[in-house]
């Protein structure tokens, strides 16, 4: 197996994933720049927020 050059934490991976996906969603799913930014931020918050919420839920269930 080769060397892994980039070793982010799980949370960093989630934030990067949410960032890039939100940019594409914002640009492609809305028409005006203002609405693109708003929808991109909305998607980013949902991505990261739902990840944190589900993580806490799994933590509490596993206890």
């Amino acid at each position, binding site marked *: 197996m080769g060397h892994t050059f980039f*070793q982010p934490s799980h949370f960093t991976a989630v934030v990067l994933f949410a960032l*890039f996906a939100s*940019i594409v969603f914002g*640009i492609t799913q809305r028409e005006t720049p203002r609405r693109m930014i708003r929808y991109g931020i909305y998607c980013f918050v949902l991505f990261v927020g739902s990840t944190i919420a589900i993580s806490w839920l799994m933590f509490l269930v596993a206890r």
Partner: protein
Amino acid sequence: MRYSQKGMATVENKNTAANSGSQPVSQPGAQPGAKTSAKPGAREGFVYLPLIAGWLVPGAGHFLLRKWGRGALLSASILAMFVLGLTMQGKLYSNAHEILDILGLAGDLGNGLLYIISQILGLGAAQAQTTLADYGTRFIVVAGLLNVIAAVDAHNLRTGRKS
């Protein structure tokens, strides 16, 4: 003697005035229901070019339509996601036999030339053996799916379905 007919109640002026309103008026002799003007945003040429270019190279479809800002952001996002996936030792699907592998391969193929060049150069892991490598695999697949969405968006811009 030549004189201006501007403002006069000629047939031409009547049609011009009527067309500036909401009610379309057919030209004398025109077929009923025939289209008299092209759809706004629609242009001449090969309609699927931005779709194909956008699939092969992330953001290229928007660049062709002179949407420089959108194209740059899409290109940077998809490229970054793909490269990060590779640097996390993500797996590039090649020989798919199981249904999940076939779906992964379909997602990877969405990256267009990025996937083909990476396969030729032998980048990516053969198997994802760590959690991080599994994340990398998902990054690559999702980059391909996002690229397909971006290419379809370029097509919609080209056809005038989206402004």
